[in-house]
């Protein structure tokens, strides 16, 4: 069946096309099934009884009334389930002597944070389980909470885990002098102190605690009725969850199938291995029935892991001409009560990014992780890198103020010029590509930097009640969390490769299996575009399969902006193997030598002739297997695993203009311009969407969000009334653009975009806020820079005393803020 190849009309390439995401229709209409909508026949429902106290001895658990409640199958403590010695995994022992408390599935003797589970109720319906949970009577003896990191490290502090003998989890140090990647910071500081032509600028910054606030609450269903136990979970990490279920519960890996159906967001908040998931495994095994757990929003805010929460002591040294000579970073990072799956490593991911885009000759990074009686912290969009970017971009502004320099000019003086790429930094990373000048020039022009500076000057001169502030963030990040050898050198408990398979179906359609696990990113669309181009098939003919260990047995899931940079090349490698196999079949059928064939737009043609065969024809011929080359298996399918040599390093220039109403302190973000270099862009619409969402989240840290605990250790921002997420109405229309210097660290030239907006935007906003009010003598405002904080900072800088602000949000006048989530039995008037 030789056909004549059509005259070649090159189809417009898919890569670079702003395709609307093919997954969106099912996601946003609710047509898909999220985990909570999956209910195998006979499912029982689980509700967790949680501690309202931060730190307390459990004297007794009276289950009788709850057990007798309608529909209740059982009420269980850890002992009742025989899981009291089961500990949840922490996969990142950052130092050999790291102190790691065992995190139980349910607290047995002592609760260590408000929200920790003490017992579970299993009932025929979710409502009956919820009703009965109110009837479980836990007798607590209250203990001193541990809330402040510095106090927790002091002599004689109350210990969260007395058996560890300390509240210090670990101290991790990187010193470029000792590592041989740069000079000694101690030397740089003493030299600067001794030199009248140098300055030393020290600042303390605080990264407030944040809540990832993904849209779909966490949920899991465990069905033990088949040969393989099936775990449906709203998770970012189905593959890791499968392995960890084996490690934690001892179920053989071959007996576990994990399905992450469509998952409604994560932002890092769903990379945990949850006590509730493992409890459902234990309950399903015990009861031999499917069990389901879905958290309420209140539980999610209280007990799902939080993010950030660092105190950053930063010292920068520079010559008076602006040349930076050293950077000393000292962090305290709040782990909360236990260690999350990668919690202790999150601040360490930032270690390599404090030098950012700058040629800093000496850098020392010291981070001490601290236990407190709070919800544990773990990855949250950017994980370590937003903290680093914030500190360096804030201190560059402080240095500019100290030296009386324009902050952008100071950055330009110190950044790595594009001719110097590839550039090995002071921490030993090799930045493969980038062009800070290009992104900055474009951003400055779009922003009208000079014009806004003029307006700012004018408003200052006129004493305008509305003052203008301009903020800069020239960021870079390391993403595509991957190189297995590098991760190994950091004692990370897994590799970083990603796997893919390509299946050519008989009818010419293509199934692509990826180990990446999307939870809102648009993988199906972007990956289809890549495959369509590479294989020369229509976009519509490519189906991306993921999120089920039975379909996609191998993978390391989605976090750290890795899906495209690591998962993408795995797919193209598998596609190339398919093409290589198909070429053998084509050569055989066309009676030509393989070397005489060329492959383009989905067809093999014999060079210099009009003879050819489409890949779909080859797929069908292979399926029929009537006439294949000698010794060839009748299959074109192929697998590949990709493990890059290096990270990728997106960068960008972000510029913000804020208007501050000096009478009320209100900050109005007037203009936001960013130009990001994320390498080769597969789908500009998805890139723009990721940047928009990322900006909203990063700006939210600067202006809106904060998770606070009162002095009893109670989370006071326990509802969305108190945890003020911004909406579109709070943000301006962003002016985003991309420039592209292709990455050389992966064959697609891509860099990753999922975290860029979040990492870059926070310091741009805070720098802008301070830029507006420095004229009044204000030197710092803690995040979020709320109207009240801005107003108070102005008052105090002008020598006017103001009142202490209570941490408590439970003013009766704060609408639903009158609700205390930890006292759900409390009466409301």
């Amino acid at each position: 069946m030789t056909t004549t190849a059509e005259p070649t009309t090159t189809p417009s390439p898919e890569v670079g096309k702003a395709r609307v995401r093919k997954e969106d229709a099912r996601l946003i209409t609710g047509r898909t099934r999220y985990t909570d909508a999956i209910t195998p026949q006979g499912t029982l429902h689980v509700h967790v009884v949680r501690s309202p106290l931060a730190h307390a001895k459990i004297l007794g658990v009276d289950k009788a009334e709850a057990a007798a409640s309608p529909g209740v199958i059982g009420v269980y403590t850890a002992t009742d389930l025989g899981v009291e010695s089961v500990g949840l995994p922490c996969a990142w022992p950052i130092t050999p002597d790291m102190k790691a408390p065992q995190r139980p599935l349910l607290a047995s003797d002592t609760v260590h944070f408000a929200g920790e589970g003490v017992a579970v109720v299993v009932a025929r319906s979710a409502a009956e389980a919820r009703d009965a949970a109110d009837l479980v009577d836990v007798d607590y003896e209250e203990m001193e909470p541990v809330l402040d990191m510095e106090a927790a490290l002091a002599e004689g502090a109350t210990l969260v885990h007395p058996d560890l003998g300390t509240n210090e989890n670990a101290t991790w140090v990187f010193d470029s002098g000792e590592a041989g990647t740069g000079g000694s910071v101690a030397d740089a500081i003493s030299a600067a102190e001794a030199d009248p032509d140098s300055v030393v600028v020290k600042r303390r910054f605080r990264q407030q605690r944040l809540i990832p606030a993904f849209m779909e609450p966490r949920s899991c269903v465990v069905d033990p009725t088949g040969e393989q136990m099936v775990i449906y979970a709203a998770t970012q990490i189905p593959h890791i969850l499968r392995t960890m279920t084996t490690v934690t519960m001892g179920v053989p890996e071959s007996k576990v199938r994990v399905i992450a159906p469509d998952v409604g967001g994560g932002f890092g908040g769903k990379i945990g291995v949850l006590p509730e998931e493992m409890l459902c495994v234990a309950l399903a095994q015990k009861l031999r029935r499917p069990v389901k757990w879905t958290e309420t929003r209140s539980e999610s805010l209280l007990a799902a892991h939080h993010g950030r929460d660092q105190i950053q002591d930063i010292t920068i040294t520079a010559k008076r001409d602006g040349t930076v000579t050293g950077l000393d970073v000292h962090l305290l990072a709040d782990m909360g009560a236990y260690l999350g799956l990668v919690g202790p490593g999150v601040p360490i991911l930032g270690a390599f990014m404090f030098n950012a885009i700058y040629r800093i000759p000496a850098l020392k990074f010291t981070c001490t992780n601290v236990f407190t009686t709070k919800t544990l912290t773990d990855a949250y969009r950017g994980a370590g890198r937003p903290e680093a970017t914030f500190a360096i971009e804030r201190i560059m502004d402080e240095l500019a103020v100290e030296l009386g320099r324009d902050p952008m000019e100071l950055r330009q003086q110190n950044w790595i010029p594009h001719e110097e790429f590839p550039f090995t930094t002071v921490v030993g990373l090799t930045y493969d590509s980038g062009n800070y000048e290009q992104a900055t020039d474009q951003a400055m022009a779009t922003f009208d930097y000079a014009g806004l500076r003029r307006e700012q000057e004018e408003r200052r001169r006129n004493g305008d009640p509305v003052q203008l502030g301009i903020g800069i963030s020239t960021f870079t990040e390391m993403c595509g969390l991957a190189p297995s050898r590098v991760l190994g050198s950091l004692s990370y408990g897994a590799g970083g490769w990603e796997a893919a398979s390509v299946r050519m179906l008989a009818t010419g359609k293509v199934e692509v299996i990826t180990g990446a696990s999307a939870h809102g990113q648009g993988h199906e669309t972007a990956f289809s575009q890549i495959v369509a181009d590479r294989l020369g098939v229509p976009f519509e003919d490519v189906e991306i399969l993921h999120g089920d260990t039975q379909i996609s047995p191998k993978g390391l899931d989605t976090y750290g902006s890795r899906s495209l940079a690591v998962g993408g090349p795995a797919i193209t490698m598998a596609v190339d193997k398919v093409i290589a196999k198909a070429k053998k079949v084509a050569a055989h059928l066309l009676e030509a030598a393989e070397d005489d064939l060329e492959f383009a737009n989905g067809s093999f043609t014999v060079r210099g002739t009009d003879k050819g065969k489409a890949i779909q024809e080859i797929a069908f011929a292979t399926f029929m297997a009537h006439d294949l080359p000698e010794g060839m298996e009748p299959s074109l399918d192929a697998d590949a695993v990709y493990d890059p040599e290096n990270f990728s390093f997106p960068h960008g220039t972000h510029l913000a203009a804020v208007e501050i109403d000096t009478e009320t302190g209100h900050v109005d973000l007037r203009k936001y311009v960013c130009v990001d270099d994320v390498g080769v862009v597969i789908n500009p619409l998805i890139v723009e969407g990721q940047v928009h969402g990322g900006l909203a989240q990063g700006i939210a840290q600067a202006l809106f969000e904060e998770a606070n605990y009162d002095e009893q250790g109670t989370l006071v921002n326990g509802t969305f009334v108190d945890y003020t997420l911004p909406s579109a109405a709070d943000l301006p229309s962003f002016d985003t653009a991309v420039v592209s210097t292709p990455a050389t660290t992966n064959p697609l030239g891509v860099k990753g975009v999922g975290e860029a907006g979040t990492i870059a935007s926070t310091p741009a906003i805070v720098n802008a806020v301070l830029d507006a009010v420095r004229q009044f003598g204000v030197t710092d405002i803690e995040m979020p820079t709320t109207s009240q904080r801005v107003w108070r900072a102005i008052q105090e800088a002008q020598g006017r005393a103001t009142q202490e602000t209570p941490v408590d949000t439970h003013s009766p006048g704060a609408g639903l803020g009158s609700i205390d989530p930890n006292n759900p039995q409390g009466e409301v008037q």
Partner: protein
Amino acid sequence: MIPAKFDYVKPASVADAVRALREGGDDAKIIAGGQSLLPVLRLRLAAPSLVIDLGGIPELRGIREDGDRIAIGAMTSYYDILRDDLVTQHVALLAQATETVADNQVRHRGTLGGSLAHADPAGDLGAPALALDAEMVIAGETGTRTVPAAEFFVDYFTTAIGEGEILTEIRFPKYTGWGSHYEKFNRTAQAWSMCAVAAAVRVEGGTIAEARVGLTNMGTTPIRAAGVEQALIGQPASAEAIRTAADRATEGTAAPSDADAAADYREHLARVLTGRAVLAAAG
């Protein structure tokens, strides 16, 4: 989220609703638009044994002209109020405040009567009702009575509505030709007011002839800024005169302190926002 168990009735008349309320006793709770009650139920902060839904009583909905009054049924939604010609012509301040309540979804569900009866001092409709001398028509077993707004708001979440009584109608005098403005200040666009000011003024030849000013979230109830009103009368409608009068905005207030705003900041906001609200109303 799952509320505790409750019984539910949806009476078809006010008389039936009053009967249900009496029979339900202390544990019965009325649901109007549900925008405050439902979250409270779902968080189990309240566990009424009976929920009486007023959504099945058509006469509680609607806006009509009644002589020199505009009468608004208690179950009229925010959405219907803010786009009603009678309201925008004669009680514009109410429409302006209503427009700032939460988001469009809430404004389609929430009701004027529900909000006033709930009496959250951070709610936006108490201050305009108080400033504009609205009257509340309350139905009980023995008929109806009318309570002026000044006597309606008693304390946090407490009104003059007695046991077994239902708010049925809110009647506003006409403020045709007055200027008005609702100045709201909050943490995020859809959050409750940290502080807000409802102002209506009648300006005659550049002079303020009459003024009505109400404050949101400056005490346990909406508060009438009587001192500001007095200070405004007879003054020119100028920024300076208005700002001076606005300095009296905190008289008689008891500003709450919370993480968003400690009392001193709230008081400062009240003065600034009062100046802005009156100036906008006069402009």
